[in-house]
Every structure is written in C-alpha cells, then in structure tokens.
C-alpha cells in the first residue's frame, strides 16, 4: 500500500501516508471497524519517525476516516456512500492534475492527450 511513499517529494511524509490510507478506506480495501497498524509497526516497517505516523493518523481522525480509541488503537470508520464517492472524485481530480502537469512538461496539449487516452482505453477494451 505504501510503495509510493517518497521522502524526496515536497509533500510531507505524513500527508503521503494519510493519502494512501484515505484511498484504501474510500476504496474499501480497509473495511469499517478494521484496525490500522500500530504506530510502532507502521513506523518501523516504513522506517519513518513514529511522530510522522501519529500525525498521519490525527489527520485521518480530523477528516472522520478513523477513530482513535485510547489504549486500543486506531479503527476505520464507516463512510457514507456519498462520502466515499466524493473522496473518489477528489482522487480522480488529483490524478488528472498530475497527468496534466506531466503533459505540460512535454508540451503536450489537451487534444493530444485525449487522443492518447482514447487509444489506450480502446486498446485495452479490444
């Protein structure tokens, strides 16, 4: 799940970790009621500062994605279908923004991008 964590990115590590978890929660890879790894487990497996994991979990708690139960751990909350949908579309928009930024670097315009997209998806459907 955390293959994309990149210390080099200008996006702080805690935000990257929170974003991966939000994605997993919205996509129901992590089910409601399921426990997140302990701070200690996640910090050592990602080799990041435990404070970074705590910050990511607090961020998710503020957003209503998880609840912190004292002494027990951090648990995924049930999201309404509407909430999941809005999180999905947020992710899609972010995806498109990244694509557009990369395309701009190449000097590729929207039309060319559309054609390439149609070609790729067409190729897959066949």
């Amino acid at each position, binding site marked *: 799940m955390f293959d994309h964590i990149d*210390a*080099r990115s200008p996006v702080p590590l805690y935000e990257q970790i929170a974003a991966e978890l939000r994605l997993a929660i919205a996509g129901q890879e992590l089910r409601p009621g399921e426990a997140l790894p302990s701070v*200690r487990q996640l*910090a050592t497996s990602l*080799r*990041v*500062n435990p*404070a970074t994991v705590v910050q990511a979990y607090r961020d998710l708690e503020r957003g209503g994605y998880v609840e912190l139960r004292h002494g027990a751990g951090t648990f995924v909350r049930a999201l309404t279908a509407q909430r999941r949908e809005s999180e999905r579309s947020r992710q899609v928009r972010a995806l498109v923004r990244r694509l557009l930024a990369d395309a701009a670097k190449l000097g590729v315009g929207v039309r060319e991008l559309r054609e390439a997209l149609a070609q790729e998806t067409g190729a897959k459907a066949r």
Partner: protein
Amino acid sequence: MTQAIETRGLRYRAGSFEIRSLGLSVPAGSIYGFLGPNGSGKTTTIRLLLGMARRVAGEVRLLGHDVPAQLPAALGRIGYVPERPHLYQALTVAEALRFHGAFYPAWDAAWAESLRAQFALAAGQRIGRLSKGEVGKLMILLALAQRPDLLILDEPTDGLDPIVRRDVLTAVLEYVAEMHATVFVSSHLVHELERICDWVGVLDHGSLVAQLPIEHFKSGVKRVRFGTPPVLTNGLHLEVISRGADPVGAGELWVVRNWSDDLGHSLTEAGAHVREVIDLDLEDVFVELLRGSRQPV
C-alpha cells in the same frame, strides 16, 4: 523542559580547528539529524556536550541539567553510541551487558536479553571476536537497554552493511515509538536520515549554518531549468543559491530558495521560460546549502 539539548555560545578551539558560538536547540521528543561533512566538527560537538572535551566558553544544558555541574545526573539518562566503540575486547557479550548495566539506574536486563536474541548475538562470544556489524548492534543494544530519555548517536551506522543498518534503525524507531525519547543523531549519510528526522541542524567548519524543522529545510528549495532565464530577480522573494549552464539544452540551471508556483507565473509573464521545476531531496539541499554558505553567488 522543552529542549532536550540546548547550548549557548559554545566555543572550542584545538589548533586551527574552531567551533564558534554554537547554539544548538534540540526539542524534546524530536529526532534531530546533525548533518555535516567529514571534519565539520560533529564528533567534537558531541564530545563537548558530554563533557569529554573542554569548551572555551558557553553553556550546555542536557535534559534540563547544567553541564558540567550536573553532568552525572544527565549521563544516567543518556544513551551514547560513540563513533568508535569503546568496549573491553576480552569480555563476552553477556559480561559486557552486566558490566555496562551496572552503571545505569534504569538498566532493563530483561529487555537487553531480548534485544541480544533479536540481534542474534551469542552470549558467550568474546567482544574481540565479533564482526563489525555485531559490534554495531551491541553498541546500540547497550545504549537502548539503559532506557535513556535522550539517545546521542555519533555516525551509528557508518561502515555497517545495509541489513545491520536496517536492524539498528528499526530498534531505535521501536524504542522512540514506545518511550517518546529524543534522538540526536549525527551523520554524513544524509539520505539515511531523510525519512526519520523531524529536525535538521547543519554544521560546516564548526559553525551551524542551518537549524530548522525538516519540512522548512526542504520547502521551496528547487532546481529550476530555464530555457530563457529571468532578466531580473530584484524585488522578488527569491533567493538564488547557485546558477550555471544547463548541461542538457541551451538554458540555465538554477538552485533557488522560496520557489512557488505563483513566482513561476510572474517570471513567465516577465519573459522567462521555465522548462522544469525539480524537487530536491535532503542530500541535494544539504550540498547546495553548503556550497551557498561557502561561496556567495
């Protein structure tokens, strides 16, 4: 107490080497990366902190204790891994644990034993016969099992293989997660610290050239490839750390601080052509910062 380590106006001199008015400030609970090239004075600074070298002037406080007046009280709460191990070669691993443990009030013999097993160190093995990696693990074990509030690690993984490095790092992170201890770790292996530090201090020629939270250290420092460089940067909130010809293409390559998208737009409007804005990792920022502090643009 909010600072685990605090120095004011710390000065030291040995021959031509000098530490000038060092003001370290290490927040309690942080993992502080003490960076600097070889010979910049990192080890000397640590020796000054721990009362092993004599300062010319200045104040040191460790965990709220005045040093050197209250040094013994401070040392009982500090786990220190020196650059060069100082262990009696004739002792076995088990004897070294007993010997070391006797000095520390909070020594946790049970945990020392479980770390020994986790690190696969044979209790009966003589220290003199341990491999370099095993000595590295034993040193970190000794520092952790005294349950310190502050860990001072001087190049703890230098010269160790990647597997041992990871074992050592994991043990430290587990301890921090559990005990909320402060870690002060010196290294010239910048890359290794990038994921774990929340504070960074950079030492060069005995002077602290930067000390700030890591996200501030990295934020806004970019490498920018210009097809056409801006004519003027006066009046802009942009600091040029270095500039030169772009090895790829005909443009220029700049390293700047305080970059933002808005700034890129205004430069473009003023006739510059920005080809690419590249994020820098901690090591790049570190190198550029030292270059900038040594020779002004």
